[in-house]
């Protein structure tokens, strides 16, 4: 199979990469065009760059609030989830707990159910059941942070388990013999060794939380509204402001792009990891 010219593959992949990248390029093109230019002949070539859409979006106090909400929610959620999953995986890996494999499988099933199915119960619980006098869980950041655990925590446990299992038990035992407490074993032996796995988990859960839309759109109204729902609001208003919409979409995309550029190698490994269990 080595007989064919590698240049042929190179050309094929150049074409495929163009197809992959074009939609994102087009998003950028729309985001840097003034409204009057949008309805002229669509053109791939960018002659002028008009940053006003971005200025408007960042200058908009409501949207800025949404961005800050998104940052707070996804960052808190990612740290919470990674921390809890780290402890849970350590417990599952090192202790002889009754029915632990069932518990492990049960945590995974939480990710299988379609989010749309739980919209209604979550909405009812958040507005009518999880209340405290006048205070309700609906439209609070803490509510969203806890809620995102339902899909991020199973994922984190699933990806971290092999990492923790892969750290030899002898290391714990040696440390215990030397007089280390369980907490010292975790913080001084396991944590440093699990750090690469923890970093990948942290980053991926962060991206998932940042990207989430459906639950945020249903369970928040203003105080905890995220940027993805802010983006969707530009479509319901009959989509007159295409430029602004593209600019928000671009801004929503940027953190993920940066993370991707910095740690793509690990992300690729992490993704294949979750899917191929063999």
């Amino acid at each position: 199979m080595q007989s064919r010219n590698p240049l042929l593959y190179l050309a094929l992949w150049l074409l495929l990469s163009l197809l992959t990248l074009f939609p994102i390029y087009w998003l950028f093109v729309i985001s840097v065009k003034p409204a009057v230019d949008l309805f002229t002949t669509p053109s791939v070539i960018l002659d002028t760059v008009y940053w006003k859409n971005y200025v408007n979006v960042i200058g908009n106090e409501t949207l800025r609030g949404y961005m800050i909400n998104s940052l707070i929610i996804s960052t808190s959620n990612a740290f919470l989830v990674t921390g809890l999953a780290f402890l849970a995986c350590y417990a599952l890996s090192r202790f002889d707990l009754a029915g632990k494999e069932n518990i492990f499988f049960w945590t995974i099933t939480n990710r299988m159910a379609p989010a749309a199915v739980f919209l209604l119960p979550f909405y009812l619980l958040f507005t009518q059941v999880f209340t405290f006098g006048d205070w309700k869980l609906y439209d609070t950041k803490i509510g969203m942070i806890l809620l995102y655990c339902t899909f991020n925590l199973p994922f984190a446990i699933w990806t971290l388990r092999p990492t923790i299992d892969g750290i030899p038990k002898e290391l714990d035992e040696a440390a215990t013999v030397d007089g280390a407490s369980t907490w010292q074993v975790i913080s001084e032996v396991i944590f440093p060794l699990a750090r690469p796995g923890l970093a990948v988990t942290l980053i991926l859960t962060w991206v998932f939380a940042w990207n989430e839309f459906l639950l945020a759109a249903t369970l928040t109204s203003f105080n905890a509204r995220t940027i993805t729902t802010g983006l969707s609001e530009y479509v319901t208003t009959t989509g007159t402001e295409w430029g602004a919409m593209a600019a928000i979409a671009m801004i929503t995309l940027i953190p993920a792009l940066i993370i991707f550029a910095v740690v793509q190698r690990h992300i690729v490994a992490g993704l294949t990891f979750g899917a191929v269990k063999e």
Partner: protein
Amino acid sequence: MRPNTVGWLMLAPTIAILGIFGIIPFIYVLYVSFHQWNPFGASPDMIYNGANNFRRLVFDTEFLTSIAFTMKFAFFAVLSEIALGYLLAQLFMKEFPGRGFFRTIHTLPLIVAPIVVGSVWRLMTTPSIGIIPYLLKSWFGYDLNIGRDATAAFALTVIMDIWHWTPLVTLTLLAALLALPKEPFEQAQIDGANRRQIFWHVTLPMIRPAILATVFIRLMDALRTVDEVWMLTSGGPGAATRFVGLHIWKIVFPKTDYGYGAAISVIVLYLTLVMCWLLYVALVARRERKRTF
């Protein structure tokens, strides 16, 4: 040795959070599904009405078509992604300059938020500002209008999903292909097998577990697609792309018919679980059978 209490304490927060946000909603939605409840309707209180909600559901054509659309979407999308993903994974097996670079680019769509994917494709396909309708018009004289043409809108949701998720298939199948031993291929070549025979009798049986696992993951995700389609077509034109998730969100919520909505949620959850279970059985059964030989 160490007391297990410590272990349980470490697991406790995880179990508590997943219990409160995983099990309670499920019990609650089941409870509501057996009641007539519309807080803004004529009788705002919850009234027990047995299986009436479920009886109504069987004859609800809107709901049934949304199920059919979802299935059709999942079928076309997952089938194309597996075929294309396999081809691309094979392409990545070849030696050529810049392979790692192209793999990185190919992975990019995976991290794009579904809602952004929907926006991007909307910007590309909306008549008068999108590049795609313009090119189709000037090259082929074809008028693409996803606001009016139901088939085109449906096809576009599938194409969008292929753009977004084929990389995942490529990555998982590439990982499987890389892990394959070399000997069976060499042996087959010595025995004079042609490429098609090698594919059907050597490659495919060996990577079948990986393919099934990928189908499993992709199918589960495809069945619950909401964000992208909501952004691209909002379920239109008419109800041509109103998938189940969209149906719950667009029809059930505004009507505040909570009892009936709960019944829909229960049924959709049931269908999803049954399908996952069937796939899981197919996956495991295959593996068990292999072991006995």
